[in-house]
């Protein structure tokens, strides 16, 4: 096996081994654990960089291990998986740094970081899975490895949130397992391939394929938080802030959205799916989810809860993009996979900083926070404006392409949904920004920590600043050759290619 052969397993092992070692570290070895964490994340980042470089130069990557009779455990790197794996690896690095700062002096850190690493291993596995069974395996691993993170605090509320999380995701997993088994029975081993693999079956199994699509969406829709399967997400936000960041931006919800993208583009093929007539209902569900999540976010006073409902709404942009036929909508949806990730993680970092530094958890307590923590609030502001779709930030690029795609495809109602969603986003984000920047701060913050010269711990500060800079970059340089949009355009060209 040459150097290239080691990259795929290396990407998985870099976080898996880190996690395994950390489990056996004592609670006190703070320094070693931190270094191990950063080392794992750094190595993974380098490997993903090498992967990008290789793919750019036309190198193919695949790896197969025997698993079930006739169905190997297959890893591979196509354009879609590289998009997701780059996102999760990059954000994992910064989330790790953030988590180290956030959990300083709190108990059970070895357990936490161990599962943290496993969670990311599972996510990268989902990204790199080259066939349906591999995808399913990592998808379930993700469920299992995230649960301990959700209940990390161990409070009754956390346990309840974890229970709900587990019930939902395991339920979804069962449905997904069924769908995978059924499809294998129809089509044999299913490798992911651009423009789908089931075209030949359409004539004979039209009805079954439709039911199967419904099953896939039910199974994966739980993690993607499609209404009415979203109930676990606002409950799971009892987890510590770095976990919320991970859940919302990198791992769980994103895995769901990515799964839907995989099913639509690389299993069914978007044109085949359109011919089967399954895209229109999916678009409708996504549209309803977008509006429902936004309306509920309006009513939340708890900052993280408001962000959670906002995630419900925003992730469905990705689904919406997948559910509309045409390269423009595909671009809009896929690029939001990255854009939503960097924006939402910035928002959760910000919310975590407020909670950790000032003890502020509610929107109504945020008065004047911009003056106490200008850098954090600036990052939060950029991300929030991006979510609303203010140009030239990342979210605006998404909305432009989605709207254009929808109108080109003749689905004008989608443009209306997106417009309404922008207004609702503004209605629940702008009051926060107004409070933070224009109102006077209170005499005493609920629970203030001092960190010397900086407004908060440097590790807590670095992560949101980097991700906020990314939000600006992804928008301002969207049409340059080195941006999420450029990569996504490549994927769309392959999906709709001649």
């Amino acid at each position, binding site marked *: 096996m040459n150097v290239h052969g080691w990259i795929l397993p290396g990407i998985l092992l870099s976080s898996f081994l880190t996690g395994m070692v950390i489990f056996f570290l004592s609670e006190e070895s703070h320094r070693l654990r931190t270094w191990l964490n950063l080392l794992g994340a750094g190595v993974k980042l380098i490997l993903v960089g090498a992967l990008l470089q290789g793919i750019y130069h036309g190198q193919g990557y695949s790896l197969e291990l025997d698993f079930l009779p006739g169905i190997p455990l297959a890893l591979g790197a196509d354009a879609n998986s590289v998009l997701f794996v780059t996102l999760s690896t990059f954000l994992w690095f910064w989330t790790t740094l953030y988590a180290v700062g956030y959990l300083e002096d709190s108990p059970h850190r070895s357990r936490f970081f161990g599962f943290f690493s496993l969670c990311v291993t599972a996510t990268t596995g989902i990204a790199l899975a080259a066939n349906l069974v591999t995808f399913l395996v990592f998808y379930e691993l993700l469920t299992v490895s995230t649960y301990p993170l959700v209940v990390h605090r161990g409070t009754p509320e956390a346990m309840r949130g974890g229970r*709900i999380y587990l*019930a*939902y995701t395991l*339920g*979804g997993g*069962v*449905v997904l397992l*069924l769908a995978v*088994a*059924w499809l294998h*029975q129809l089509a044999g081993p299913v490798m992911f391939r651009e423009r789908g693999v089931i075209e030949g079956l359409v004539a004979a199994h039209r009805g*079954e394929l439709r*039911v199967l699509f419904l*099953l896939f969406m*039910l199974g994966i829709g*739980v993690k993607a938080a499609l209404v*009415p*399967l979203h*109930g676990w997400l*606002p409950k799971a936000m009892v987890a510590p802030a770095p976990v919320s960041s991970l859940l919302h931006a990198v791992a769980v919800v994103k895995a769901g959205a990515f799964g839907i993208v995989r099913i639509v583009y690389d299993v069914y093929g978007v044109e085949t799916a359109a011919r089967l007539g399954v895209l229109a209902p999916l678009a409708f569900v996504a549209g309803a989810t977008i509006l429902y999540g936004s309306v*509920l976010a*309006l*009513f939340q*006073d708890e900052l993280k809860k408001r962000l959670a409902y906002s995630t419900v709404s925003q992730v469905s942009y990705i689904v919406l993009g997948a559910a509309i036929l045409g390269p423009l909508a595909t671009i809009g949806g896929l690029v939001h996979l990255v854009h939503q990730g960097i924006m939402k993680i910035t928002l959760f970092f910000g919310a975590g900083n407020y909670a950790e530094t000032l003890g502020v958890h509610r*929107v*109504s307590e945020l008065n004047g926070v911009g003056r106490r923590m200008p850098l954090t609030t600036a990052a939060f502001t950029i991300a929030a*404006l991006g979510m*609303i*779709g*203010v*140009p*030239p930030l990342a979210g*605006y*690029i998404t*909305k*432009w392409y989605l*709207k*254009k795609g929808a*109108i*080109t495809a003749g689905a*004008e109602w989608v*443009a*209306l949904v*997106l*417009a309404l969603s*922008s*207004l609702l986003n*503004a*209605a*629940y984000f*702008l*009051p926060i920004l*107004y409070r933070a920047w*224009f109102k006077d701060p209170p005499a005493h913050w609920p629970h203030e920590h001092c960190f010397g010269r900086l407004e908060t711990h440097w590790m807590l500060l670095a992560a949101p600043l980097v991700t906020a800079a990314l939000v600006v970059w992804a*928008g*301002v*340089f*969207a*049409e*340059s050759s080195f941006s999420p949009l450029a990569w996504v355009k490549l994927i769309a060209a392959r999906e709709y290619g001649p």
Partner: protein
Amino acid sequence: MNSLPTWLLGLAAGAPLAVALLLAARSWRRGVLRVAPLAAAPALVLALTGPVGAKASLPWLVQHTVLELDAVGRVFLGFTSVLWLVSGWYARGYLVKDARLSRFFLFFLLAMAANFTLILAGDIPTFYAAFALMGLASAGLVFHRGDAEAARAGRVYLVLAMLGEVLILTGLVFLVVAGGTTQIAELHRGVVSRPALLLVLAGFGIKAGALTLHFWLPLAHPAAPVPASAVLSGAMIKAGLLGWMRFLPLGEAPLWGCGVTLLGAGLGAAFLGTLVGVVQHNPKTVLAYSSISQMGIIMTGLGIGAIHPEAWAGMQAAVLIYATHHALAKGALFLGVGPAHAAHTRRQRVVAGAGLLLAALALAGAPFTSGALAKTALKANIGFLPEGWAMALGILLPLAAAGTTLKMARFLWLVWPRAGHATPEAAQGLWWPWLALVAATAAGVWLLPGSLEVLPRKLSPEKLWDALWPLLLGGGLAGLGAWLRRWVSQDVTRWLPAGDLGVLLERLAGRLRLHPAIEAPARPQHEAGPDESPVKAVSRWSRLVARAREAIPRFEASLRHAAVGGALWLALMLILLGLLAASPH
């Protein structure tokens, strides 16, 4: 490509942005604030040297940004840059004691950069991006004062601005899809897209203060500090006008519906502005209503151009003259509020009074002023309309001018510098920028292309009378009003409050409890007080909303149980189904 005008294009748009970014560095702030007003200078230089056709492509920026100076843009850039330059200069004196001076200038410079960029934008995404940024940045100016009135004005402004931006983005995407291009210059060749037309009309109507979408304006413009009001009411309001000129297919196809809408909304705004504006107590509110009226008059010009494509060429020049005239005169009036309040000596009072009078007369269209020129230019193009319409407009427009005179009289009455009424603070640094703008008001319009051709060759007494009678009528009405005022003991603003329609909507929203729960999670059960007589339907609706508020969390919770159970049940059922389906094989 790298010729001077190309650089100047980038510099004009980029300089304010760069200065705004420099403000972030705390240690440089004092120095940066000193030169901040100069950020508008490159734009002014560009407008004056005017290399029409200069183009800069920045393909790496946002969505292939193209900056371009065309003839229309040059005029807009001219008056816009003058206003920003003077207002920035003025702001340094006006806000010298303000602890948040740097925050003010941050928003001021961002809005300035956006305003220049949207004028220079050669492609649709850049135009939209600049327009949206300007809307948000200027909200910071409205909020600046930080009291309850500013907070209310800012909220109303922000709601309307966001609504406008969303409408515009959707409309522009429709345009791009229908036209197959993002370049503004290449647009309109394709078919007229009806949704795009509607959305563009309404979206920019919010910024331009078109009737029924105007009510944020008399709240927001007075709430901002004086220099910000000047640019809001003089320069930024014109972005709505520019949007229409760029994106409505004027001069290409006859658009009856669109034209009649513009005409109706414009005339309505002209008269409503007078009716409500004239009873206001705050001089800046009177000016804001005057802006609504004046934009209304400009809209009638657009309306005529929309109905008759062949009229557009002449009308466009008239609209440009009118826009320039209004921008400069309105800016001079707003900025005049500061010196008028700070005139201590007799000489200062005379200068302040003379300057205000000059600007007010110009706005009212007195002979030999820029206003007279603008009105003549507009009237010259009415002839394209059918007989009856032209006649009606021939009467309505001068009546609107009489209304303007009335408002100007009211304004002068409110701000007139009187001995012993001056505020204690000396107004250092306000006089020169203001006087410069007054001078620009007197002279600026005559620099415009085509302005001299509008002038009648010979001055006849008839023509003079045409220009004079609305003025005399307005003056007479003002005198009558002042005399009648003695018998009216009640405050008329009770029925005609600033923000007219908006106040009704606010009350309705309050009644419907539509304010999102940002203040307190739930308001106490508040039944209608004895002084209010609740409309039945409204109270029923409010009960419904209250109930929905309680019901939503309950629904969420039930979903949690139902969904879990349901998913498992479904899974089991489907496994059975799958087995059944599999069995024949």
